[in-house]
């Protein structure tokens, strides 16, 4: 589909695609999907989807909230929760410095935002992880916020929608405490499920490791944006272990759909209406 759309403007696109220097930072974007150079403005107006190839760019928290929830309907919970440094962790950079840099870069205290909002008029508890904050990895704050969100969804008898983006999985810098967050959120989801709560998990590019191996895979319905990278082990690790070329489209949304691990692939344009529709089917 994307190729036909492109054909009319082939020469212009060829021109745009050629490697060049001095592109003003911020005005243009290079698409990871088709390598076309596209106007940032145009992409942003298109829900951060490439107008050329439909590649779904990663979306910052504030934008995602605006895209998905009804205007001004989001009431953020636990916004003051901030990460500690339980291990006094340092690699080449200390975790504290890394946190400061990431906080400055994203304007977030940590990767996760939770709260209550409306989607097309339907009340719900909403959570998301932002893959731009230390790869959207799950440390204590992400685990705690999501667990509280699940617990409150249980109390309030509201559907729960979590949009995950995490290339990092469980956050190394908080060591074993990060791993335990997987169990903590999963246990809260078990109780939510026993209380017949509806959990819709939305997977975005990328959702890997400990995030994929806990809450993100536990949706009653699991939706994924097109061509998102979703899996347990990183593709490079898999390749190194198997010592063979990875199959075409390995660990993409389409791969997961084919193998039976997600329910639907949904274009970002339809995400709100799809989630709203599923809520309507599953709530009385």
């Amino acid at each position: 589909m994307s190729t036909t759309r492109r054909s009319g403007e082939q020469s212009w696109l060829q021109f745009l695609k050629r490697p060049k220097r001095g592109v003003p930072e911020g005005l243009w974007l290079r698409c990871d999907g088709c390598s076309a150079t596209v106007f940032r403005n145009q992409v942003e107006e298109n829900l951060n989807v490439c107008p050329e190839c439909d590649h779904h760019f990663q979306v910052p928290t504030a934008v995602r909230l605006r895209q998905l929830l009804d205007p001004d309907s989001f009431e953020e919970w636990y916004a003051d929760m901030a990460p500690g440094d339980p291990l006094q962790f340092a690699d080449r950079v200390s975790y504290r410095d890394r946190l400061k840099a990431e906080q400055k870069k994203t304007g977030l205290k940590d990767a996760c935002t939770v709260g209550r909002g409306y989607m097309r008029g339907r009340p719900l508890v909403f959570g998301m992880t932002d893959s731009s904050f230390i790869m959207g990895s799950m440390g204590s704050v992400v685990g705690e916020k999501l667990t509280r969100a699940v617990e409150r969804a249980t109390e309030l008898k509201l559907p729960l929608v979590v949009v995950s983006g995490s290339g990092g999985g469980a956050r190394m810098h908080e060591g074993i405490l990060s791993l335990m967050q997987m169990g903590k959120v999963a246990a809260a989801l078990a109780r939510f499920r026993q209380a017949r709560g509806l959990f819709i998990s939305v997977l975005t590019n990328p959702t890997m490791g400990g995030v994929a191996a806990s809450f993100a895979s536990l949706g009653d319905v699991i939706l994924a944006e097109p061509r998102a990278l979703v899996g347990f082990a990183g593709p490079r690790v898999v390749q190194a272990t198997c010592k063979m070329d990875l199959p075409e489209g390995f660990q993409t949304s389409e791969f997961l759909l084919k193998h039976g691990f997600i329910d639907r692939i949904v274009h970002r344009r339809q995400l709100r209406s799809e989630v709203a529709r599923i809520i309507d089917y599953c709530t009385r």
Partner: protein
Amino acid sequence: MRHVLPFEKPIFELEEQLAALEAQPAPTPAVQDSIQRMRVEITRMTRERYENLDPWEIVQVSRHPERPQTADYLELLFDEFVELHGDRAFGDDRAIVTGFAKLDRRRVMVVGHQKGRTLKERNEFFYGCAHPEGYRKARYRMKMASRYGLPIVCLIDTPGAYPGVGAEERGQAYNIAVNLRDMSTLEVPIVCVVIGEGGSGGALGIGIGDHVAMLQNAYYSVISPEGCAGILWKHSEHADKAARALKFTSRDLLELGVVEEIIPEPLGGAHRNHRHTATAVKSSIVAALKSLETLSVEELLERRYQRFRRIGVFEETGSA
């Protein structure tokens, strides 16, 4: 041939000298005297070395090829083991062994990672790295145990869940996730022991317990030291630095409140004496089961929920 870890070398050299002396048919009093002194020296050296293991050395001990594995504990710790194979969906993952067992007079369900001893076994067991079917097999047996009131004993010893094409195709992430969720509501006591390597999600996938103990020289980590070094230090040769940074030794985890107990190992590591190690593991499991059995199902489940619920370190000003 015994496997010698680099830092054990001086100890082994002395032990070889000792063996040579002891092999003398008619030792003079002088030789007997030096045998005696050498024995004392070996014990002193071993104790000193093993009391001061660096986290990276602990990883090496935890991976020692002669370290007791699930198969050894099944032999030494339980009076009977009735293996139950397969996951009813895909196959029989040999990296996780499941079955009924008798622990003194108690009937229990055992779930344990299997690394394998011989090369053939190791290849069949993928060195203890389970596939999705392994986690599904474990889940099937644990749910069964819950229905029949059998306490569950999990023996954790894996470098991690298998990172392969087939594992991804068959839902590695999903199957671990479901284990985490479903184990949290099983209506029987779950006692876990990290006997060697506690490798990330692959370990936690059978690690949601009411009582989690670690052998002294086991480690339990969010990521392997090599993996962490590869990402954060850009090369796996910095694994020793990652091992120190990750705080994953039994002492660290006890301090962090992630495990309840450290099971001491015999002098020189568990691989030096399987029987003593098994005895210590057994008394830990039995004591844990005894205390958990006094709880009602509601108490047990609430306690298990809170056990994980309280884990995490963060700051909150209370302004929002």
